[in-house]
């Protein structure tokens, strides 16, 4: 396997608040990685840095072997990096189908009928087809989260970044979500997933990275990481013996 994404010594701070502190890691082609950490640890900022919504103060990001540190967010999407937003940002005045069509035409570069077919396929895969003609602004929160993933998928990403999409789902819904993500992964898409719902995460990823205060504090095999006392204390805020 070759490295698809390689992040080295990435740093970013806003005044006194450090959101990335010399973070380095490598994501192999075809991997599925989970990112854990308490609120405010810098997880979403890390996504912003990878997608180009934020510029790092220092460090380097490589994608598919090429340096993309100075490349715009739009260009990174066309290269194949696409993300869902933790706080959903639907195109509220457009229908669900049109939301997906934006990704299919702009991100994946499809046109005409093939873009429409792709958008419909994505909606079908994410269970949103019955809502295709609804204005995205009228969706419930859960549907918006699903739309976030659908829209990211519609751009045909090589690397899919998912930001907290399982929170608040029922068990059945969560199961469906896991199935969808696993299917996307099986089709060859590399995945990085930030999630608090640990059991969902563990059903998908082969590796976990834990960050706190913008710093990577652990990386490794999921069971091992979840078993470590340090992670339990930092992440759940529970004393191991409580």
């Amino acid at each position, binding site marked *: 396997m070759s490295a698809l994404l390689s992040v080295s010594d990435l740093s970013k701070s806003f005044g*006194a*608040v450090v959101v990335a502190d010399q973070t380095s890691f490598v994501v192999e082609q075809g991997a599925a990685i989970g990112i854990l950490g308490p*609120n*405010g640890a810098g997880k979403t900022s890390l996504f912003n840095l990878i997608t180009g919504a934020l510029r790092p103060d220092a460090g380097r990001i490589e994608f598919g072997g090429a340096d993309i540190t100075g490349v715009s967010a739009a260009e990174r999407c066309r290269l194949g990096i696409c993300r869902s937003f933790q706080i959903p940002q639907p195109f509220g005045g457009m229908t669900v189908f049109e939301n997906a069509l934006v990704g299919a035409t702009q991100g994946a570069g499809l046109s005409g009928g093939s873009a429409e077919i792709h958008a419909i396929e994505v909606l079908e895969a994410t269970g949103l087809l019955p809502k295709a003609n609804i204005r995205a602004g009228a969706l419930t929160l859960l549907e918006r989260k699903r739309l976030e993933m659908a829209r990211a998928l519609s751009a045909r990403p090589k690397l899919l970044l998912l930001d907290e999409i399982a929170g608040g789902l*029922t068990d059945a819904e969560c199961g469906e979500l896991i199935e969808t993500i696993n299917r996307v992964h099986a089709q060859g898409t590399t995945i990085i997933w930030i999630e608090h719902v640990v059991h969902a995460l563990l059903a998908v990823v082969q590796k976990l990275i834990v960050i706190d*205060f913008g710093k990577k504090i652990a990386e490794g095999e999921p069971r091992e990481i979840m078993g470590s006392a340090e992670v339990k204390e930092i992440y759940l*805020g529970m004393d191991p013996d409580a």
Partner: protein
Amino acid sequence: MPDSLLALNALDAHYGDFQALYGVDMSIERGEVVSIIGANGAGKTTLMRSISGLTWNDPAQVVFDGQPIGSLRADLIAGLGIALVPEGRQLFPSLSVEENLVLGGKTGRSGPWSLDKVYDMFPILGERRSQASTSLSGGQQQMVAIGRALMANPDLILFDEISLGLAPVVIGTIYDVLPGIIGEGMTALLVEQDISRALAVSSRVYCLQEGRVSLEERTDQVSREDITEAYFGATAA
């Protein structure tokens, strides 16, 4: 409950066009310390906003000291004696440390707290009183945020995620002063994701899950299993 200082009655709250709270009932008695726990998105912050008046509700859904305040403006609620230590501290960057504290006392309510008393409790703030609040460390900023709320001499103080983004040793320092604050006769409501800290300082706990109360219990009677179940949902453990 006859002596409840704060009562939430079937509180529904919306955040944008999304409903964040569904029929939440709560009752906090005078002098109690109650903690509220729950996963991200469970509705904790919306609850704080509803109580402090940043989100408007039906008048009778929030009752403070016998008075319906659900649709009262935030500045008027502040005047009635509710103060919030907000998530992420939210100091005023254009104001010095001392100006932040003085502004906290804007409501003019009388009580035990004053600038001197805040400086006694957090001596470092006295030393840095004329500095910009943004030049302080995260822990010191949290002290200013707490001091700012105390300056209002509130009857009810709300703490929203005060350990968020702070190093463990700093969290320890902050929690060490809480008993002293509450000892002054204040009632406190504590939203916290650091569950063991929350349970240690409070007498009762509510857990929120997807905008509904999933657990209400005395802290000395609650088990870790109860919490895990209420926190993550039935089959997550």
